[in-house]
């Protein structure tokens, strides 16, 4: 098994929904039960990446041949449709790839689970509005340790007190203070551990990185996500329709998550560089950039 680690950068607000909520928002995002951190479940990722390939193959061989996407879907998972394409060889290759990566329904001779394991995408940096640099990318020792554990690396960072923020660059501080939303923290320069780690990731905007305590981070990711209010306009009157006004929660643009793919030996796998996840795609929500982190 090979571990392949990717960073997921949220380009437009991302709503991976948890259904109806009873909290302050009507449509909250999914979160980890034990930490309250937002995440993208592995099943969501796998589903979206599978659909991405399914559509790609369908468009290449069947778009104008009267074959439905669902037929191709069935062909991939069960092989019962016996679809034929003009370019037989390359189509077979594509089929084989999808069956290997995503698995089959168990009705083929080698009915099997996929040979790539999709893990949950976990939060690494969370953008928080700031008075000094528009927004800062916040993380905490727990998130970093977890990244280290999940990727087999070692990261040594000191833990800030609840009232402190360790800054990659002291440029983000004013009078040795950092402000996140309306809260003030004592700014300290980050240690070599954090600076080295951030450099090794090769992310844009690294001067915005700030490390806060686990408690503070947890508070920020739970209370400072993006919440949008939506209404429906009545086409006859042009005014807001009575009743439906709802709020949707999003993981804000510029959030950074990471995900591990475990790939069986001998299987070629690479994730698409851009993908749409979650809801409200046709209004531009959920565009995510994927980039592999070199081990």
């Amino acid at each position, binding site marked *: 098994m090979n571990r392949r680690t990717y960073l997921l950068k949220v380009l437009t607000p991302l709503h991976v929904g948890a259904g109806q909520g009873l909290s302050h928002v009507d449509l909250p995002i999914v979160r980890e039960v034990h930490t309250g951190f937002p995440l993208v479940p592995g099943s969501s990722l796998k589903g979206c990446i599978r659909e991405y390939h399914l559509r790609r193959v369908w468009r290449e061989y069947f778009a104008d041949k009267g074959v439905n996407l669902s037929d191709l879907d069935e062909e991939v998972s069960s092989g019962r449709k016996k679809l034929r394409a003009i370019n037989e060889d390359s189509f077979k290759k594509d089929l084989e790839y999808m069956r290997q990566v995503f698995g089959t329904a168990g009705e083929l001779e080698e009915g099997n689970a996929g040979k790539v394991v999709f893990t949950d995408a976990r939060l690494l940096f969370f953008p928080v509005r700031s008075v000094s640099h528009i927004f800062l990318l916040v993380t905490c020792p727990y998130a970093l340790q977890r990244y280290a554990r999940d990727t087999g690396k070692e990261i040594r960072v000191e833990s800030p007190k609840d009232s402190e923020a360790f800054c990659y660059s002291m440029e983000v501080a004013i009078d040795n203070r950092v402000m996140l939303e309306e809260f*003030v923290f004592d700014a300290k320069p980050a240690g070599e551990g954090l600076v080295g780690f951030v450099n090794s990731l090769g992310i844009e905007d690294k001067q915005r990185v700030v490390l806060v305590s686990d408690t503070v981070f947890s508070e920020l990711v739970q209370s400072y996500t993006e919440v949008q209010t939506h209404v429906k306009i009545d086409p006859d009157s042009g005014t807001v329709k009575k009743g439906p006004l709802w709020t949707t929660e999003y993981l804000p643009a510029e959030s950074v998550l990471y995900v591990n793919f475990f790939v069986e030996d001998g299987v070629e796998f690479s994730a698409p560089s851009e993908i749409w996840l979650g809801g409200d795609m046709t209004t531009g929500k959920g565009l995510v950039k994927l980039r592999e982190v070199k081990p």
Partner: protein
Amino acid sequence: MKQSRIKNFSELPGGSVHSAVKRLSEKSRNPNLGLLFYKLLPFWFEVDELERGIKSQHSAERLASILEKVKSYSIRLPAVPCQKSFKLKTAYRLVVGMGYPSLLENGFLFHHTYGVPYIDGATLKGLARHVLLLSIQEALSERLGEEKPLSEIEKFLLSEEENFRKHRFFEELRNREVEIVLSEPSVKFKDAHITFRKIFGTLEKRGQIIFYDAFPEKFSPDQLELDIMNPHYSEYYQSKGQKPPADWQNPVPVKFLTLKRGVVFRFCLDYEPLGEQEPELPEYAEVLLRTGLQNFGVGGKKAKGYGWFEP
């Protein structure tokens, strides 16, 4: 001095002590304007001023002076690659998000992360959709000799495939050209009802076009300006017509934040990546969106000429 409420704003140990927030905010040159507008504005006042209560007018004046201070601010917005994009500039002032509660009484929509004014993709999609809906209504009423309410046409357009094809409107529109209202030069769509379902989707199927959020091409805070509305008969409105709109009532000026005329926005459209990618759909969507922006506009106070765009 009495203990301020604001001192206990949160239990976060970082705290939001009034004097500290005030000092930092005053020194900032690169603030997130959304944060500033919705949360930090009260910190520009002294504690005793807050205790006495601030009027929206004072907030507006304070905001104006802050904007003056940070006008050199700049932000690089990430460009989203897309199939089709076009630029239009605001032809008069623009105000989106007036309904959000704020210290100025009227709100303003800032992007969560970048703190710049923007127009949500959902608003743009709704606008383009409305233009096509109106065009179909006009074509149908010409044909049927009677005006059908938009909601009835919308219901037909959203219906399940089987019912959609059986509906009498379907044949009325089949193979006919529908002129897009107010389009200039005039544009006609063939089978507009089918196009409608493709672009905007139905309850069963996702639309094939993505409407991205639209951002100003270059943004700096000096593109914002305060505007004023001055209801003369406030008692008449507040009592819902119980009191007469008489001359002895005093006008109550209310200031609100707007974006200036002449700010260039970039509008982006793309295929829904997993869809069928019919090349004429982005073209059609552009016509609809352009027509909507140039003739109907977006945001608040459209009837007073706010929120429309010009090339």
